[in-house]
């Protein structure tokens, strides 16, 4: 199995609480997403999607299981909090339902902030940001504040931010929920394009009927267990 880059999860479990009140949010999660691939993650309410996203996003610690990110074993026997912060910064990109841009930074600096946090010089960070903004066709709004952008434009900036440190994996949580179907498909098109261009593994958590047919592969999660399924992989271009 080729595990370099991409994300590999095996036997992941997560239990909230102890004893009587314990909740097994994740019971058996197995996933693998290859570099350049975009997969869907769908499931009913309470099935464990958010819990899985938090575990993949290194903000909560799973109770058991293995997780390999790129060529690095992230979780096997335990991990350190300080490592997790750097891990999130360098290895994982996040795209949320709402773009959650930093309102007091302009578009360029919203994207450039990540390399800056990683200690890159301001000039180099901004240059990388502008390159991505160009790739996402939003460079003409580079100097605008987030509040001056449309919802779709904000989401593209958020995608640029997720990509800027060239992480092996991007986690997208309902990225198309607030968008109409044309814009939703545009976002998916961009994600596919970026996945290929930057060899990133992208996991999209969604309920959105408009985009589900576009995935070639889908993980269903029910009651804390994942099941892999082939998707329609419908062409949308």
């Amino acid at each position, binding site marked *: 199995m080729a595990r370099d880059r991409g994300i590999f999860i095996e036997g992941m479990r997560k239990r909230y609480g102890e004893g009587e009140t314990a909740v097994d949010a994740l019971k058996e999660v197995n996933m693998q997403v290859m570099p350049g691939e975009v997969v869907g993650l769908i499931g009913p309410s309470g099935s464990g999607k958010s819990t899985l996203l*938090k575990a993949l996003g290194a903000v909560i610690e799973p109770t058991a299981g293995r997780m390999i990110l790129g060529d690095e074993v992230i979780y096997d026997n335990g991990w350190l909090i300080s490592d997790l912060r750097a*891990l999130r910064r360098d290895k994982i990109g996040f795209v949320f339902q709402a773009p*959650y841009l930093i309102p*007091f*930074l302009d578009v360029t600096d919203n994207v450039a902030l*990540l390399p*800056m*946090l990683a200690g890159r010089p*301001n000039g180099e960070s901004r240059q990388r940001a502008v390159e991505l903004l160009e790739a996402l066709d939003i460079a003409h709004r580079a100097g605008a504040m987030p509040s001056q952008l449309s919802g779709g434009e904000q989401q593209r900036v958020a995608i640029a931010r997720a990509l800027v440190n060239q992480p092996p994996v991007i986690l997208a949580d309902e990225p198309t929920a607030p968008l109409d179907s044309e814009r939703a498909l545009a976002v998916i098109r961009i994600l596919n394009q970026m996945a290929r261009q930057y060899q990133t593994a992208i996991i999209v958590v969604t309920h959105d009927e408009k985009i589900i047919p576009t995935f070639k592969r889908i993980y269903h999660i029910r009651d804390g267990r994942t099941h892999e399924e082939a998707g329609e992989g419908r062409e949308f271009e």
Partner: protein
Amino acid sequence: MISLAARDVLHAWGKFVFTGVGLGLLIGVTLTMAGVYRGMVDDAKVLLNNSGADLWVVQKQTLGPYAEPSSVHDDVYRSILGMPGVASAANVTYLTMQVQQGDRDVRVMVVGIVPDGPGAPGYLLAGRQIVRSHYEAVADVGTGFKLGQVIHIRRHNYTVVGLTRRMVSSGGDPMVFIPLRDAQEAQFLKDNDAILNERNRTAANPAFSRPDVLEAVINSQSNNPFVNAVLVQIKSGFTPEQVAESIRRWKRLQAYTRAQMEEILVAKLIATSSKQIGMFLVILAIVSAAIVAFIIYTLTMGKIREIAVLKLIGTRNRTIAGMIMQQAVGLGLIGFIVGKISATVWAPMFPKYVLLEPGDALRGFIAIVVICILASLLAIRAALKVDPAEAIGG
């Protein structure tokens, strides 16, 4: 790395600046309160400096002449003059009263002086010193009198022949200097009716019923052989304490040196006021801290989402804490600048002297920075508790 604190402030500067200005006015009040205290101390020192004396000779067992009433016979100065080490000695009287200035009443301290002796105003803005022994006055500009105007004190009118400045009592009331004789009379004599009443009462007293005795008694009642203090200047080669000691021993009077007078004025006379102001400063510091804490906390709570996102994308706690603390200190800086400017603008409008010392401003600045840092801790604690998982949501 860019300054997140500065960007955030620039983005929402309106709220920030308004809060800063509000805080600044409060800081201005605080600096002014400190200035009021410094002004009081300075008034006391100026009073001592301007009297030009090395020793104050006053009634025994009193803290006179400024902190307590004191009364000394007006011939005592002659025998003091004869003592070793004494260069000059002059009687002086102090009387605080209201006088009419135009249509308003001003509270002044009327000082009876011997022209050219210790106690006379050392510096004139305009006009000349008192040269005639009656009915001339030198007034502090703070009284509002102009050269040539007339001051009515008790039964007499005094023409203003000279103007001086920064001559105030320890209570900050501007001074009016008049010749000693007139001042002694002013202290003693009330008005014509009072004199008449007093005479009638004396005449009605059977003990004074012999005509020659009555005459003598009435005469002795109608002049005042007392003054409040004798101001002494000493010769070089003698220490003030040396001379003071021999006056205490031989003249059965109290003599205070300059240092002792300062102690009386600063430590005793204005002690209660300074405690009063101290309380004010403590309360103002607490109120300022509460304002900074509240506003920084509110601003931070308004950014919880952004803070969660910042943490999720890998921002250090240190960076987030720094952002909040920098904003608190920034608020303090705006406040300090506004406060310093407003205090400087409104200090001269105060009726009493307000002395804004650079040292107080510096201490105030340090206190503000410390208060802001402490006040931001609450917000920092809240921000550090934010879970990056919140950015992902449920």
